[in-house]
């Protein structure tokens, strides 16, 4: 049964997908928000501190730098990561941050060598990741690079969906 509407269908807590004929997009969300309890607590603490420590000369530098650090962390937190696969056109990988800023990277169909799932050793752990091998490039393009979702069912569903878009003529079964 094909899903043709352009709505975001949730599959699991993290993954949802959108499909049209010849097009598939998989979206992985994280549960990050701008204003969480800790953020509100820190900001109000900073606000209170800036009044109580008015006399100390270096206090405003410390408070200022903590505030800058907090903003920088919030700006670089990833809200969503998407992969959009269009048959015979290519694959686009997009990262959306909390501030609304998004970075996207497109690889055209003729330059895609393969789409793989492999394991990588980081300092603490071994993680699964999905990647696109691009022709004549040393580095692969890692999909869901910051969120690194688990293998079942997120990566496998996205992997199968994108591969069937790119490398076969039939659409993936709707999950």
């Amino acid at each position, binding site marked *: 049964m094909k899903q043709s509407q352009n709505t975001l269908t949730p599959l699991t807590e993290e993954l949802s997908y959108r499909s049209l004929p010849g097009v598939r997009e998989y979206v992985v969300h994280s549960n990050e928000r701008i204003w969480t309890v800790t953020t509100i607590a820190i900001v109000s603490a900073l606000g209170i501190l800036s009044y109580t420590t008015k006399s100390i000369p270096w206090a405003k530098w410390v408070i200022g730098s903590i505030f800058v650090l907090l903003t920088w962390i919030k700006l670089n937190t990833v809200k969503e990561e998407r992969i959009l696969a269009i048959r015979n056109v290519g694959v686009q990988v997009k990262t959306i941050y909390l501030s609304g800023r998004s970075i996207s990277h497109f690889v055209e169909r003729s330059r895609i060598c*393969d789409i793989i*799932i*492999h*394991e*990588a*050793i980081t*300092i*603490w*752990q*071994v993680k*699964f990741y999905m990647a696109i091998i691009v022709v004549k490039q040393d580095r692969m393009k890692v999909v869901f690079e910051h969120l690194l979702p*688990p*293998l*079942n069912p997120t990566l*496998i569903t996205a*992997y*199968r969906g994108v*591969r*069937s878009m790119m*490398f*076969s003529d039939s659409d993936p079964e709707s999950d």
Partner: protein
Amino acid sequence: MPYNICMVSDFFYPNVGGVESHLYQLSQRLSQRGHKVIIITHAYGNRTGVRYLTNGLKVYYVPTMVIYSSATFPTIYGFFPIFRNIVIRESIDIVHGHQAFSSLCHEAILHGKTMGLKACFTDHSLFGFADASSILTNKLLKFTLSDIDHVICVSHTSKENTVLRAALSPRHVSVIPNAVVASQFLPDPTAADPNYITVVVISRLVYRKGMDLLVAIIPRICAMHPKVKFIIGGDGPKRIDLEQMREKHLLHDRVELIGSVKHHDVRNVLIQGQIFLNTSLTEAFCIAIVEAACAGLLVVSTKVGGVPEVLPRHMINYAKPEEDDLVIAVSKAIHMIRYEVPKPLTFNEELKDKYSWKNVAERTEKVYDLISYSQTSPLIERLRRYYGCGFYAGKIFCMVMALDYLFWIFLEYVFPREAIEQAQPFPYKKYQSFDKSERYQTTNKVKPSLIDD
């Protein structure tokens, strides 16, 4: 019942050598018997991460710092988080470490025991007791082997050596010799030069392998027997001595130095000769002489270490590691070849069944059966064992081990077990049946996925 085994060693592919091929062959045979085997080793240059070798053998190349000749820098606790992660995701039951020189092996055994797994150790070399490096290595070995379930040695001499070094009870040590793939070393009687009797030497050209003895005996033998040639393969610091000897006695046409020989070329070098000469000063189990005998050569060797246990009497001539005795033994071998006393072409048949990897894997599996039925000792018992290592050393070892335990509790709290995702088992059966079926399709069709649901 199938086990999940983790082999740990510093020495593995792409390094080539005895330990490496032992690991590879043993892992292949064990996985053919139905167990799951993974290998953990350190990263070689750019080669880091997870790689798959033949038949789906999974190798983890863990990025660590290498200090000397492929041995890692021993940060005792630095390896723990990644090791724990790998062991949990692959559901490992048994940790099997190889080679006393490998610090990764010692660390893995320590952490494996702390986590409650069974551990096993295989030693591939002999050690002295007198010089500084031996004393330190022996103490370290005592530390690792205080708390281990079983030890495997490659010969009875090696067993005596290990038992003395690490003060173990001999009941906990098994002897499982190395093996050779006999079909890779088939003899070829037509390849040798019929006008000469050729003596082949293939080894690393280092002091330990008796190169000084070789330098001394070659001129004497060449003087005594005019129709004898030498082929010397391999490379190392003593090559200069051999070349100087060649210059001094003007033996350029009688002695050939072919440089380092790759493992797949060894057979082609061996079949050019009729005699194989091994002059090692110490050897736990010399696999080179087994390879030479399989290839149809008569072996002459120094009677050291585990060498007397390896070959039957009619295939080998022994000598003391002295110049005169070696000259006598080589002369005797030359006479035997000239009067065609031994039948070297039959050696391969005889050795094929005696030294097979299938046999080694069966015996290793029996060791695993033995250790999996033993019970895990409680923490106090482990501390007691480490304490008995020595007056000062015991206390230090206990501290190291206790800190390791605390670190483990910390890791269990910070990186909980449930959060670690299990690895996908490699579909061996699918891979093997796929290999034999029709040829691999090209890119426009969907490639068969290696991931099952």
